[in-house]
């Protein structure tokens, strides 16, 4: 056992270039599997979070908003912007049949503030009726939002107790949301009274244009859940036919574009992982075959010195497992070192909802990626190990074969 281990270790140390190439190959395999799996999982988690974040069956907005190119970006990706309809129009929508729960929201885009050198989206909601934002806020804040209290998204550089200034109005950060992987992460939430105060202040500064709408009697969107016996499609169709100047959009329709892009990216990444895995395994197989062919005399000498066929196979397999083990740990570690700190840059680049799995899940993926790479190395070496057991030592040493 001791002799077999020392032969294996000496073989690994004695051929540094071959060992380095095999380590690099398995590191590449392991890094590809780890990074690919984490990216695909994060995208799926981001989409699930987005579905939960929309939280309503139907969203009703002024018709003019839907003609803006950035409308979907505003709702789904956190681009700042605003649009308004008067409360009388909103009431007409709420008077329609089949409306279950409903809540209003007011959007306001800021200029710079203490937490951000760039604009942020402020979302005013009614805590009495809200059913989409409150569940998220309750995860990090148990109390009630007072006047000039705000809840900030996880990606904003502001913390509980901080004072921020929007349009000259000082507000207090009452809570910070957990990471959602959606546009909520870059938004600021507050109640209606505070957002109306901010709107008033912005108008005094001449920074917002409400045209002919009274800012105190305006809302940006209505979020509606269908009553029992009605479907989201029926409600949306009914509103679109009977209420002018508004557009009702089903939440499912809104995220279908994101969902399609996401499945496209996920399929591509999965395909790449599979390709790298197959290619890596084939290259490892070739590398082991060439290496074993070069060492036929060495194995023949070991065989005539009394080593059993199983012993020869175990030397080959041990070498493969040790080398691919080292490579897989390095690869998964490097993958984590690149992917985790740069996850926001990746999120910005992909432009899709992206929510990293928990630390425990990531640790599990690292182990799984390392295991997959070791398995690939073992599979590739198994064929060579089998050939070594079939070796005819006499023929090899005579040089006939």
């Amino acid at each position, binding site marked *: 056992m001791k002799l077999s281990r020392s032969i294996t270790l000496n073989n690994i140390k004695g051929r540094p270039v071959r060992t380095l190439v095999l380590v690099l190959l398995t590191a590449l395999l392991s890094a590809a599997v780890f990074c690919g799996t984490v990216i695909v999982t994060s995208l799926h988690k981001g989409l699930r979070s987005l579905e939960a974040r929309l939280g309503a069956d139907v969203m009703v907005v002024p018709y003019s908003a839907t003609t803006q190119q950035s409308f979907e970006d505003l709702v789904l990706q956190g681009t700042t912007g605003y649009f308004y309809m008067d409360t009388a129009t909103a009431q007409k929508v709420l008077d329609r049949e089949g409306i279950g729960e409903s809540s209003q929201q007011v959007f306001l885009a800021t200029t*710079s503030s203490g937490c951000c*050198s760039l604009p942020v989206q402020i979302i005013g909601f009614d805590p009495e009726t809200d059913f989409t934002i409150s569940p998220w806020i309750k995860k990090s804040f148990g109390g009630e939002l007072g006047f000039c209290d705000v809840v900030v998204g*996880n*990606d*904003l*550089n502001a913390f509980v107790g901080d004072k921020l200034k929007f349009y000259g109005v000082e507000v207090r950060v009452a809570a910070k949301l957990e990471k959602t992987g959606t546009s909520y*992460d870059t938004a600021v939430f507050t109640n209606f009274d505070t957002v109306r105060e901010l709107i008033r202040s912005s108008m005094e500064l001449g920074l917002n244009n409400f045209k002919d709408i009274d800012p105190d009697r305006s809302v940006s969107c209505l979020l509606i859940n269908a009553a029992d016996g009605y479907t989201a499609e029926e409600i949306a169709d009914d509103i679109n036919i009977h209420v002018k100047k508004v557009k009702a959009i089903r939440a499912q329709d809104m995220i279908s574009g994101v969902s399609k892009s996401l499945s496209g990216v996920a399929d591509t990444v999965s395909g790449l992982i599979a390709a790298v895995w197959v290619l890596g395994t084939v290259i490892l197989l070739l590398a082991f075959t060439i290496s074993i062919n070069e060492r036929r005399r060495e194995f023949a000498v070991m065989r005539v010195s009394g080593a059993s066929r199983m012993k020869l196979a175990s030397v080959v397999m041990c070498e493969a497992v040790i080398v691919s083990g080292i490579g897989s740990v390095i690869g998964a570690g490097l993958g984590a070192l690149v992917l985790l700190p740069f996850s926001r*840059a990746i999120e910005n680049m992909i432009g899709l909802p992206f929510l990293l799995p928990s630390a425990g899940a990531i640790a599990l993926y690292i182990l799984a990626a390392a295991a997959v790479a070791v398995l690939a190395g073992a599979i590739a070496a198994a064929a060579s190990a089998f050939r070594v057991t079939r070796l005819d030592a006499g023929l090899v040493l005579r040089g006939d074969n």
Partner: protein
Amino acid sequence: MKKRTTKTLVCDIILFALCDFYCAGSKLLFHGCRSRMMNGSWMNCHWAEQAVFAFGIVLAVLGLALLVLNDPGIKRGIALSMIPAAVVPAFIPNVLIEIGCGKNMRCQAVMRPAVIVLGAVIAAAAAAYLMINRKRTDKEQ
């Protein structure tokens, strides 16, 4: 004068390359946000980038000295001084200079993690250099 071994030469080249990459990258690859505030002044991340670049220049000079000089004692001293020079800039964005942007901004998403990761890699490489060099000196003694 003692002749440099291949192992030491490889270590010198790796550290030199890492330091140069850090220096050039802080201006070309993982720089901060390039836009100015509405009043025309630079955002804080610009000044954080400048500070990181200054440390990058120090690291590049140290890397060059490590490559050129041959005395093992001086080389060990240079490798040792690389560790704080690589670790301190990791605290520049957001700790020493508050960059104060949304976390999706380039300075938070690219510059900060790059400075931390590369700093850690250079510090680890310098520490490894010291270990390798110490072993060699022990053998010589």
